[in-house]
């Protein structure tokens, strides 16, 4: 595959992530903040998101499996996860967190456990997608190309 083909593949893959709702406009904002002086900005922020999320999901699992569930704590964790997923544009994770918070308010443990599963699922999906995307970027750069900066949604 030549660089041109790899770049087109990157564009198509990125578009699909938006069309399928995994990412929203905030991710575009992140990409726009990346430049020659900050070439790894997106990867850095997303890596932080992965670390943060994994910690929060562990804490949530622990908190919801206690005998007396502390819903304030659970809500605080979900609030954090909602915030960070929103900040990087991980739309489906964010939406799953919004639903989760409603059940925290109701103090419904079973529903919360189901929500946690949902959030974990969405997190795994978007993590895989983003890792694939970054893999494509590495290939482009290794082949001497640059990552496209214009994403036109005309196609």
């Amino acid at each position, binding site marked *: 595959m030549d660089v041109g083909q790899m770049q087109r593949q990157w564009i198509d893959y990125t578009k699909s992530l938006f069309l399928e709702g995994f990412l929203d406009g905030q991710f575009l904002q992140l990409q726009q903040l990346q430049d020659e002086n900050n070439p790894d*900005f997106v990867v850095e*922020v997303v890596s932080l998101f992965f670390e943060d999320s994994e910690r929060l999901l562990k804490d949530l699992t622990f908190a919801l499996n206690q005998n007396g569930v502390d819903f304030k704590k659970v809500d605080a964790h979900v609030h954090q996860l909602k*915030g960070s997923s929103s900040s*990087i*544009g991980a739309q489906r994770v964010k939406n799953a967190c919004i639903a989760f918070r409603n059940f925290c308010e109701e103090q419904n443990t079973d529903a919360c456990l189901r929500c946690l599963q949902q959030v974990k699922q969405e997190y795994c999906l978007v993590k895989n997608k983003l890792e694939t995307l970054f893999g494509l970027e590495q290939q482009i750069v290794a082949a001497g190309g640059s990552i496209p900066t214009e994403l036109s949604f005309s196609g």
Partner: protein
Amino acid sequence: MALETRFHVLAVDDSLIDRMLIERLLKTSSFNVTTVDSATKALKFLGLVEDELRTFETSVASEIHQDVDVNLIITDYCMPGMTGYDLLRKIKESKSLKNIPVVIMSSENVPSRINRCLEEGAEEFFLKPVQQADVNKLKPHLMKSRNKGDQDQEQEQDQHFHNKRKDMEAISSPNKTRLKCSS
């Protein structure tokens, strides 16, 4: 016309991701940026120290040093311990700091929260995630505070505040009953 010196912004947020984002956004707009992860650290940086043994009403906490030159403070609302709102109040109560424009950020669109912050003297209230378009609104506030002695500027501020209230009322009208306020 435009001053060559860069404006210095202090950004306060307990989320590392959000600190990274706001720092990048601000630097893109050619601001010098300092980030801290709590309101307490922000106060320390600004030279205000909490005197826990204060037994008298003071309009200003003990002020150690004023060699820190901060032109704008942007802070998250929801933070553990001291909130962004508390920080805003402390800044407005301080003789040396009250003229520094303060901007509040929040992930939640709570009209009463927004109004309370604006009434306490916040210049703007940004909904997270903060966008470049939001950051672009900051320069006018900074230019204004640089000329804070000018009466015309004060009148402009009142007009802006009036417009901001009107904008906020327009935003807040639909879902008045659904108010969610986390600590």
